[in-house]
């Protein structure tokens, strides 16, 4: 069998099972990144603009959590969502929302830490002008987020790359259930363990294509930003 061809043939033929796997991967990772952005950007921005005792510790913790191993995040969410865990009554373990939760835990620190860095740099630049214009705190945060939007988009895309590529967390909390919680990465893990290497390689190539696409998008946005805002 010609490697890589089979998965693409399935994709081109619109194989519903494969499309469902690709679609679930995207839905889960995009939902997770959406939630992580809603949490991470305000948290990162306020961290950039406030000073309180222990702030350095918080900053270091967020930076360290950027490298949080996915399996650890998965395990934490697993223990939380298990029927025997504190949030067991929600019945979310082995469902797509559980996978979203795990990826939110993974991606939020990345978005928060990078946002803090971006907003802090921008604030250093804007501090004098905005203070001189007597801009209030709320508008200040809004202005910095808006003016940092191109960097922030790149950050969000980086978060998406992390989410879409990880397997450790979602295989633990999702269970890799066929047709329900099987994503591209968990399918690759499964097909590899079944020894069906051509299918695994094909899925891998699709995943890489998506990640490359996302990065190309990030690069284009960065370029556009430079041209527009200097």
């Amino acid at each position, binding site marked *: 069998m010609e490697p890589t061809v089979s998965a693409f043939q399935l994709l081109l033929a619109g194989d519903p099972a494969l499309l469902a796997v690709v679609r679930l991967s995207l839905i889960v990772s995009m939902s997770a990144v959406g939630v992580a952005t809603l949490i991470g950007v305000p948290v990162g921005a306020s961290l950039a603009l406030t000073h309180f005792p222990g702030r350095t510790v918080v900053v270091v913790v967020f930076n360290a959590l950027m490298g949080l191993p996915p399996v650890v995040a998965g395990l934490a969410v697993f223990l939380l969502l298990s029927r025997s865990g504190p949030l067991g009554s929600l019945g979310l373990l082995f*469902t797509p929302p559980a996978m979203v939760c795990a990826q939110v835990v993974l991606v939020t620190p990345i978005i928060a830490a990078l946002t803090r860095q971006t907003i802090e740099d921008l604030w250093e630049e804007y501090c004098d002008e905005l203070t001189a214009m007597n801009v209030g705190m709320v508008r200040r945060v809004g202005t910095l987020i808006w003016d940092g939007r191109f960097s922030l988009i790149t950050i969000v895309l980086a978060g998406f790359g992390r989410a879409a590529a990880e397997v450790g967390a979602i295989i633990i909390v999702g269970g890799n259930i066929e047709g329900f919680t099987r994503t591209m990465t968990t399918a690759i893990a499964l097909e590899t363990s079944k020894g069906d290497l051509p299918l695994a390689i094909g899925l891998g190539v699709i995943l890489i294509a998506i990640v490359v696409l996302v990065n190309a998008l990030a690069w284009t946005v960065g370029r556009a930003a430079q041209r527009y805002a200097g």
Partner: protein
Amino acid sequence: MLARRLLIAAAAAMLSFPALAQDKSIVVASTTSTQDSGLFGYILPLFKNATGISVRVVAQGTGQALDTGRRGDADVVFVHAKSAEEKFLSEGFGVKRFPVMYNDFILIGPKSDPAGVKGTKDIVKALTAIKDKGASFISRGDRSGTNIAEIKLWTIAGIDIGKDRGPWYKEVGQGMGAALNIASASNSYVLSDRGTWLSFKNRGDLEIVVEGDKRLFNQYGVMLVNPAKHPTVKAKLGQQFIDWLISPEGQAAIADYKVNGEQLFYPNAHDRGA
């Protein structure tokens, strides 16, 4: 605070997965052998057609699958290690064990057969030879049914594998397919269930070296997780699945599943002693 946010996140995510709310479904904790062999891919659609219930299979090693049941994260467990299943029942986590089907374990090894075990039907002699020659052996090492069976066979051979192991004995801590991949890449011996072997595609230089020993018998059983322990267990739907598996219809479906014309599992729900 984080938990609250997660809750909100989960609720938001729920909205985008409408299938969750209305779908009739159960979670079955089962083994990698039943999934990797493709059995579930064949019988579950038949079950769904018959009852409208979707079965979500979380494929783990037997030990892990039983733990998933113990925590209440599955409605049904479908595994293959009778001793571990009986322990599960005696702890009160299962309602009743039903035998479903069997196949057998086989010893897989490289064609070059460095331990010289090809041709024998005696698995105990074969394992002793592997140990004596120090031939590379891959163990699942994951408390799976296959792993439990393997350890039992070493014990029968009078070898305490916890103590007598050497560098030739490698625990990989992974599923059946992954263990076969590793054996294939390192020309090692490995104990496998027949179903996974038959559907395994990346065989390389491996082949069956020992089969047909009675001690290689591999029985599968199914249990409903006890709703008295975990009220969230979907007892009615779960029992429906069990009833179907042991019904003539379910048993016929199991018998019908073939890979390359070869039957993988043999239904035996009515063998009381199984």
